[in-house]
């Protein structure tokens, strides 16, 4: 469905010297720097796969997706989406793809949602019967009924995202790109959205590429993940392997009045790492297979005065950092 071979994208960045004098100087003398946003990556995605495309901010995710959508022309390498080269045949490609950008709307700002969908029907030339059947299905599944007559600009974030999602699947595209579809949403809406994506994938065999910072999204939706950082692929494969390796990791942040003389209690030494010490906080990292979180907390509370604590699951950022430092 998607073939990417040796794909690169370079940006030319104009370097600026700091300060006003630097800004004025840069009007006349410009130093150019080439940044490789995407650096010779290759992968292949089969029809019906749901792939998590993850990495820290600025890793090259959006650049890759823009190239797959035909918005950006690659500097080097080959892309095929459903047999079409996106940047050469942008309009043909557009029929095959759907996209949701968590931060921006694809819909028509001033127009009621229902009318937006009507326009999309004409833009994508969707047969009326298919359109109505899908609309009925989507309305039910995403609970769009009460919001169809409201202009997009008046919708809440959660409502908007549900509408966006329906819009991206409306023309039954072969591939859908979802760029942080759950960002800023509450748990119920997140759940609703994930269910919908799973359903679409089952029902129509839609291939889905998902970028997200939410581990829940990945765990619930993807069989496979591609981790990218600094424009290169760090890992491409089964989610299970990554979860085995990192899924049990927990971080606990202890808020403490005094951290100057902090020393890891002897009973924790074999199983727990100190991730970070700041003036008022100690962060401990451990695997829930080696030791229970409750035990770590109990030992810490016995030895030190603790004001507050927070438990964190592994974030994508930590995983990427870990892979960097230790490999998979």
């Amino acid at each position, binding site marked *: 469905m998607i073939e990417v071979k040796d794909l690169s994208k370079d940006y030319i960045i104009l370097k600026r010297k700091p300060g006003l004098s630097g800004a004025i100087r840069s009007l006349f003398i410009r130093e150019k720097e080439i940044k490789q946003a995407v650096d010779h990556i290759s992968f292949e995605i089969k029809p019906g796969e749901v792939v998590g495309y993850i990495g820290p901010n600025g890793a090259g995710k959006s650049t890759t997706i823009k190239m797959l959508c*035909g918005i950006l*022309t690659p500097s080097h390498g080959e892309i095929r989406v459903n047999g079409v080269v996106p940047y050469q045949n942008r309009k043909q490609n557009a029929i095959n793809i759907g996209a949701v950008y968590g931060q921006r709307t694809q819909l028509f700002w001033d127009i009621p949602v229902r009318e937006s969908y009507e326009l999309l029907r004409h833009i994508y030339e969707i047969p009326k019967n298919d359109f109505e059947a899908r609309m009925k299905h989507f309305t039910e599944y995403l609970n769009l009924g009460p919001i169809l007559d409201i202009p997009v600009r008046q919708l809440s974030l959660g409502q908007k995202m549900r509408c966006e999602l329906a819009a991206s699947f409306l023309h039954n595209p072969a591939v859908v790109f979802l760029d942080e579809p759950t960002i800023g949403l509450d748990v119920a809406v997140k759940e609703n959205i994930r269910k919908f994506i799973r359903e679409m994938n089952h029902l129509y065999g839609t291939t889905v590429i998902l970028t997200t910072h939410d581990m829940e999204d990945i765990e619930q939706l993807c069989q496979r993940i591609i981790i990218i950082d600094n424009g290169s692929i760090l890992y491409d494969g089964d989610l299970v392997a990554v979860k085995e390796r990192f899924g049990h990791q927990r971080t606990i942040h202890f808020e403490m009045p005094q951290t100057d003389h902090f020393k890891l209690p002897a009973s924790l030494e074999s199983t727990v790492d100190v991730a970070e010490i700041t003036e008022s906080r100690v962060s401990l990292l451990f695997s829930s297979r080696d030791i229970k979180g409750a035990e770590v907390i109990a030992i810490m509370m016995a030895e030190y005065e603790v004001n507050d604590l927070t438990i964190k699951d592994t974030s994508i950022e930590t995983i990427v950092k870990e892979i960097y430092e230790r490999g998979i």
Partner: protein
Amino acid sequence: MVRYMKLYWHFFAAQVKVMTEYWVDFIIGFMSVFFIQFTSVYFIKVVFDHIDVLNGWTFYEILFIYGIASTGRSIHQIFFDNLWLVGRDYIRTGNFDRLLIRPLNPLFHLIADKVQQDGVGNLVLGTILLGISMNHLAFDWGFWDIVLLIVMVISSGLIYSGINLFFVTFSFWMVDSFPLMQTAFNVSQFARYPLTIYSKPIRIILTWVVPYGFTSFYPATLFTGHKNYTTLALITPAVAAIICVIAYGFWIIGLRAYTSTGN
């Protein structure tokens, strides 16, 4: 082409529907544009209360020029108004990408995205001015003259839009070329009066550099007693076509720059 026309109709209808729901907005927009233009016209009237002829042009001839300019401008304003916002609302925010993932010509999508109701004020005022002045011109109006006048008005609208398109294209490199567009557009204010009142350099600029002269003055000479400009007047539709082709070509170059650099 037929597909795009049908599609435009759907875009248009959806927006008119919204306008009818917010009809107070419509009235306010309409009235404000109408009155802004009306004060300019009234000023001309005041000037002509003190003189009979301005450099060989009578009050109604100038009103006629003004009428063509207003109706032509209204075509630009009603249908192509979104061009103004390419930098601010599309490129700067990244919303331009939205136009690129649709199976449509992005320029079409951009233009169809907005129907500017305020332009109706210009259209109504322009039509009234044309109606009044035509009755007072020493010209025998036949059916084909009216057709010719309509062709000229449409050409005028296309020239406004083409020049606007040309200058907005710079947004692909400089994020928002609004000041450039504004500057170019302000030049068009000159073209609402007979070009003969200006010095030669300004006439040359308005004819061959930013050809706003063709948006009202040259076409108007066809229907008034001023016969020295017939050739220039008759090539108005060709000028409109050339401007649009050049501007569109430039737009394509800009678009290519955008897709190779992103933003």
